[in-house]
């Protein structure tokens, strides 16, 4: 089983040189820490920045410079600032190569639910619906099961959905799976110490297992 950092490390291996990437709040934000320095990528913050740098030192803190999670940040050399309209223009037109975000549920069709839990205060979808409707490639970082053991990889979402047929790949604490174009979770890798049988039991949606499933390397 992977912890949050393990999930972030595994997702970092999906990153290719030259990519523009939008990282959601939570585990996705951690991914930035594990991208090799030999790989040049540009991180987009949907509130209006291309080129997120490391968190600032105390002396560098600037209230006019925050990320979409409202954290203080710095800018990399070569950054560009712009409005929220321009930011979502580039998201909708497919200029962002990779979007990494969290999810509460994903269906075997690639539907994602991550913005609303019935009975809890609705905080809003922020930019999630725009991102999932437009991104060329979406990787979801999530727990395979809820705390009470219920699978979050489902035949269809039970929670209100954020977007239809958009998730391409999931990296969970147990496995890496792809969503096939015709539907179904195709198992690609097992987390260290997790068996195919464990993953089968933890996956309520259609799981496709073909041949030997390697253990992931981080």
């Amino acid at each position, binding site marked *: 089983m992977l912890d949050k950092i393990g999930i972030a490390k595994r997702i970092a291996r999906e990153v290719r040189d030259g990519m523009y990437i939008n990282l959601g709040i939570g585990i996705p934000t951690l991914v930035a820490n594990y991208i090799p320095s030999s790989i040049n990528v540009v991180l987009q913050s949907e509130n209006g*920045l291309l080129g997120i740098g490391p968190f600032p030192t105390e002396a560098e803190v600037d209230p006019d410079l*925050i990320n979409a999670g409202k*954290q203080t940040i710095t800018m990399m050399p070569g950054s560009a600032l712009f*409005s929220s309209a321009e930011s979502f223009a580039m998201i909708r037109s497919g200029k962002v190569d990779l979007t990494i975000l969290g999810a509460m549920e994903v269906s075997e069709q690639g539907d994602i639910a991550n913005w609303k839990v019935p009975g809890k205060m609705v905080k809003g979808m922020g930019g999630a*619906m725009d*991102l999932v409707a437009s991104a060329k490639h979406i990787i979801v970082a999530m727990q395979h099961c809820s705390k009470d053991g219920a699978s979050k990889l489902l035949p269809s979402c039970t929670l209100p959905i954020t977007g239809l047929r958009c998730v391409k790949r999931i990296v969970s604490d147990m496995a890496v799976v792809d969503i096939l174009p015709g539907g179904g979770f195709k198992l690609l890798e097992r987390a260290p110490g997790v068996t195919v049988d464990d993953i089968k039991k933890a996956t309520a949606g259609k799981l496709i297992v073909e041949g030997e499933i390697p253990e992931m390397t981080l």
Partner: protein
Amino acid sequence: MINKVVADADEAVRDIPDQAVLMLGGFGLCGIPENAIAALLRKGVKGLTCISNNAGVDDFGIGLMLKTRQVKKMISSYVGENAEFERQLLSGELEVELIPQGTLAERVRAGGAGIPAFFTPAGVGTEVAAGKETRDFDGKTYLMERWLRADFSLVKAWKGDTAGNLIYRGTARNFNPMMAAAGKVTIAEVEELVPVGQLDPNDIHTPGIYVHRIFQGRGYEKRIEQRTTRKS
């Protein structure tokens, strides 16, 4: 050039009536019109509809106007940082319309660009699509969304000149430029107000044509919601 300068925030908001529809710039607490909000608190206008990406926090930003019950309705993309907001929402005192952030930005942009409606993929197949027209273009499904406009737009910039030209700083730009364009009356507050001729025309983010009143704000707090730092 046309001079748009007013003395202060109180003069700028003097004619905002009860029940007005306002746009307020900012993302979280970054780039919000602090002085104009303070003036609205002093003025005590009621029944406001506020279009703003967020609703502030309990003790700052739009949160202050929620506490004084001046806001009837919020139109936002995310409202998660505010306990008083939650209380009023659950008790039915406050109406809320949640809009995907990109759709919100584009609807405001459309309002300022004279585009009454447009199509976007965001929200297709979700609750957001309820009651909205959908249409396929080139094999993909889109929702039709309408423009948003406001009686008054309250924006905050870094520098401005007496003709109303504005320059924002860092990620404090966010929703401010589109909201400046989408207000029937747009009120801009700036950290530094300069005479015309001091700003490079090439660097202007919001041309003065969109700004009806401008004043230099005072005592900016610029609060930080998530102060996150590294050691070295």
